[in-house]
């Protein structure tokens, strides 16, 4: 291993840069994490100090490119299919039926947004649930699922749709056999499900891009805000509020809270799941 060390001063500069660019905030206690993960990257680009790396990120012509490589390195992408069943139950049994009922009185689309989708497990899960509903209820339209992440590497994975069995640990057998092809140690998601999800690279703090997300019925942004500092959280939640249709719903991570961030939403309690509603 090389002995690249990250000085406190450089750590703060890089940390602030990451924060400005992505909203992700690395507290002082997380210095080791940046140091470890970025050291690898420094070797790849053959730089010998974090000073040089900082320069590359801040001033070079390739800075945009390098930033997205950095995001690939430092984001925490932990996820799985069917993560947090009670939330998915609320989505399937109450939220979607309620929205559909409203749509009977007009409205032609159902738009779902998975923000911070990692390697696609979350939006694919939503697609499978909706597909099941489409088979039992008459849908007048095909649901659209938009999914994005700041990490290009994750979006590539998502589009490939090939997963180690570890990611299917919460997946009911019914879904496993219906929507995946089992090949060796991997599971390949079916084309029917793939077709339902549109992936793109998006930085949730990029106002211009995020501003194009409009008329959304349901947003899932789970376990993403935890990496954001207070200000960035506030900004993002405001954006979500704008993006939702009246009557739309927002799901955040099971252990997250909007308490100190926004009072705009109405808090709805479902069995073991809290969901936010825009009235």
């Amino acid at each position, binding site marked *: 291993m090389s002995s690249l060390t990250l000085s406190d001063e450089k750590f703060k500069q890089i940390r602030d840069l990451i924060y400005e660019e992505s909203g992700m905030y690395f507290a002082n206690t997380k210095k080791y994490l940046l140091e470890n993960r970025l050291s690898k990257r420094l070797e790849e680009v053959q730089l010998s100090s974090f000073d040089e790396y900082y320069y590359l990120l801040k001033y070079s012509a390739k800075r945009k490119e390098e930033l997205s490589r950095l995001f690939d390195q430092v984001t925490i992408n932990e996820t799985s299919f069917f993560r947090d069943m009670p939330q998915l*139950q609320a989505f399937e049994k*109450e939220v979607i039926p309620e929205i559909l009922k409203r749509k009977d009185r007009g409205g032609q689309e159902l738009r779902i947004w998975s923000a911070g989708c990692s390697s696609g497990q979350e939006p694919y899960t939503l697609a499978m649930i909706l597909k099941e509903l489409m088979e039992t209820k008459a849908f007048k339209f095909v649901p659209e699922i938009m999914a994005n992440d700041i990490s290009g590497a994750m979006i590539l994975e998502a589009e490939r749709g090939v997963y180690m069995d570890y990611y299917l640990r919460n997946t009911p057998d019914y879904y496993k056999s219906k929507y995946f092809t089992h090949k060796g140690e991997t599971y390949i998601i079916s084309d029917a499900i793939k077709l339902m999800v549109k992936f793109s690279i998006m930085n949730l703090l990029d106002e211009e891009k995020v501003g194009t997300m409009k008329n959304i019925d349901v947003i899932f942004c789970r376990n993403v805000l935890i990496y954001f500092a207070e200000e960035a959280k506030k900004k993002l939640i405001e954006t979500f509020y704008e993006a939702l249709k009246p009557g739309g719903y927002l799901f955040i991570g099971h252990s997250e809270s909007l308490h100190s961030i926004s009072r705009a939403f109405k*808090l*709805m309690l*479902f*069995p*073991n799941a809290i969901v936010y*509603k825009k009235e």
Partner: protein
Amino acid sequence: MGNDRLEEVKDRIQRIGNLPTLPKVATEVISMVGDPDVSMKEIASVISKDPSLSAKILKVANSAFYGLSQRVASIQLALVILGLSRIKNLVIGISVFSTFPIKPGQPTFDREKFWEHSAGCGQIAKILADLLKCEMDGEEFVAGLLHDIGKIVLDQFFHDQFVKVIDLTFEKDIPMIEAEEEVVGTTHAEIGSWLAEEWKLPLSLVEAITHHHSPQEAVLNPILTSIVRLSDLFCKAKGIGFSGDTKGIAISDRIAWKTLKSAKPDLEDLDVERFVFDLDAEIEKAKDFIRISSERVQTKEKV
């Protein structure tokens, strides 16, 4: 209203001839605590005559349920440390388990789950009361514990109809209380209210049981009734109990929430997400309470 039907229900229960009663000690303690001429010592001696009850009181007092820093070794000491009202409420709480013992594994109405929900509700009421600095001496816990007591009566005396109620609740996707109106003609709240009166429970408890579905009607102690109502809703949000209802609850729209907020503006600052998330540990304490209360205690033991 279902008043005539309530009379019929009462008649029927009385005809069968065994209206469930609280153990005699409990009734005695309730009336003694209200009597200014009765000394603490006398109350201690009445309680001590029932070794099983005494043992349970001490166990609960020394459990995580109260989290006391000091060990309580006698009923006298318990009375001093916890106070008369607390002990009275504890006696009521423990006693209902001998009146309506747990019968596990009933297919339609599972009493174990029922008590889990009730004690969970009591425990949540206790935390809410603490959080909002309403000193209620444990009455909030008992109110939560007993709020649905009418359901047990329905199950015991009108089993077939109660099964229909449960079926209808699922079939039509309506609140249980509406199904009860339809099938029985009266509700578990009304029956519970009657039972609580018969048991001569404190009036604020009677009120909380009567109006836990209509907190706007409470006049004696609307805060208590609202706390019980909210706890009931939080329980549902935690999926505790036997109801298969998955509907969302807009907590801030609820009358109980509004009532409580106007009396205790601090409620507005409650981080509901955190609160609900942290309830798991509390629910465990409630289970402790059930476990201790429904234990069969060796009565030879000297306490």
